[in-house]
């Protein structure tokens, strides 16, 4: 089965003078087709864990398995979108998507790939921008292209590092809708792991929310979000279950911060 399993993983950044323990003893299993959000204050190691899932970083201690096989490097079975700089600026939107398509459709003619890229770009609502370079697109449009490229890989796992963090609230909402729409259209549901610092985004999208806390980065709580899909923003924000969840997450995140602040003050 397509399970992602993080087993007792720690990660230490090695600097030239001192090293820094970024992630300590994380255990987590993510089921196939699940949407999981990592949330927590900055420096809590949530992005580090995502980078390890992507195979960009290697765990210092412990191991990460996908389908019972250890992850040793990046692969096209895991599509990745970053907050920015996912797209190659010297390629047009279409060329960016075609490059991803080429990696997983060996032997298919360029013409067909171009056609497929055009369709994918239409899916994310960019029918007229396929010849534009990323610098000619707004931040929100760039992330749409990045989504299209991730879907082009058609990988069973999607990893996203604050994908909508750099765009304003209105654009963020449409991008979230875009992602959920594409996700729900697939017959075989993709596993999605997303790093976010937006509580509402986490509740709206996830099946489970994993809360991280800093110094050193570790998982403090895993919260299932048992709100049925499809979730509409209006009804969700009114529902008592949402309110409770939000309040709980706020105390968890805010509480940590206040605690850290109080420690700092008292140590002065």
């Amino acid at each position, binding site marked *: 089965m397509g399970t992602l399993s993080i087993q007792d993983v720690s990660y230490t950044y090695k600097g030239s003078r001192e090293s820094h323990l970024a992630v300590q003893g994380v255990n987590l299993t993510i089921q196939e087709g699940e949407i999981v959000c990592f949330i927590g204050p900055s420096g809590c190691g949530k992005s580090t864990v995502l980078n390890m899932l*992507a*195979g*960009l970083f290697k765990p210092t201690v412990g191991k990460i398995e996908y389908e019972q096989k250890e992850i040793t*490097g*990046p*692969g*096209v079975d*895991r*599509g*990745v979108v*970053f907050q*920015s*700089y*996912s*797209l*190659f*600026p*010297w*390629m047009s939107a279409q060329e960016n998507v075609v*490059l*991803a398509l080429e*990696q997983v459709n060996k032997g298919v003619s360029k013409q067909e790939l171009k056609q497929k890229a055009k369709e994918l770009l239409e899916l994310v609502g960019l029918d007229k921008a396929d010849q534009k*370079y*990323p*610098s*000619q697109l707004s931040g929100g449009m760039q992330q749409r292209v990045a989504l299209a490229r991730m879907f082009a*890989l058609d990988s069973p796992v999607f990893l996203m590092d604050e994908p909508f963090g750099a765009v304003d609230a209105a654009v963020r909402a449409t991008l979230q809708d875009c992602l959920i729409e594409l996700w729900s259209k697939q017959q075989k549901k993709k596993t999605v792991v997303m790093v976010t610092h937006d509580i509402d985004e986490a509740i709206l999208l996830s099946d489970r929310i994993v809360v991280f806390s800093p110094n050193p980065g570790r998982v403090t709580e895993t919260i299932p979000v048992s709100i049925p899909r499809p979730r509409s923003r209006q009804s969700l924000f009114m529902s008592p279950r949402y309110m409770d969840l939000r309040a709980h997450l706020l105390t968890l995140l805010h509480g940590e911060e206040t605690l850290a602040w109080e420690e700092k003050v008292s140590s002065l």
Partner: protein
Amino acid sequence: MSFKIGLRAVVSLVLWALAAVFVQFVPNSEETPTGSLFIFILAVIAVLLVSFLLLSTNPEKHQKRQALADVTSVFAVVLIAWEAMTAKWRVVDAFIFPSPGTVFDNLWSDRVELLGHIAASTKLLITGFGLALILGVFLGLLAGSNQRVQDLVKSLANIASPIPPIVYIPYAITILPSFFMSSVFVIFLGAFWPILINTINGVGQIEHRLIDSARTLQLSPWTLFRRVLFPGALPGIFSGATVGLVFAFILLTAAELIGGTAGLGYYVKYFTDFGDYSRVVVGIIVIGFYVTILMTLMQRIERYCLRWKQR
């Protein structure tokens, strides 16, 4: 569509008209040809007028038009002063300071021969610079993606690149079988180091998230090289190539001055030896135009290749 060509353009045109009147109607102090110079100035005025009119229809080209007007105004003033000091009132020695009329006549009568010299220089330049570009970019991309190669190449560059390649010229002519090979060698050396170093820096300046992005797509090494490292390093490659081209041209003319039998540098050297200074000035002017065209061409290519950077 209105043809408002602007004050500065008018100033330039008036100055050139003054030059024409001055050349043609003020009597010469000696027998110097002015007839073809007059026609040349009229041609310049015609070209300028057309350029100003064409540029005036596009408001975005306003700055370009102003620059053209200013540059051509300076040229007109220089031409008038030069004509006044030589052909008209002979303030300076006629042997070492030829009049513009003589220079222009020689330029015209040597035009076929000059084209031959331009071809000879271009052949050397393209070979030497081309080799430096291919090898510099290739090694630069390699060194940019491999720390060990990069450390080695950078130490070598620190030792070798400060030696002015000009000092190799006489020795290169001695040890290499032909003048062609020795000048290609020094031109190559002049262009190689700046291209190599700037290519390495170009790779270093690629946003590391883009490299991560490439890794997650599992690109093959060759695809990574061709589709990511090379285009990503292009801004660096172009700044290296521009500096490299300047060095290459300096070394080209230096080599031709020292040991050539053809080429623009040789043309200047040959007539210096004969004391035919009007032709020396012809050579200098042609070299000026040649370099200007070369650099403009380079800028055009750069702008096209880096069009993705513009907003």
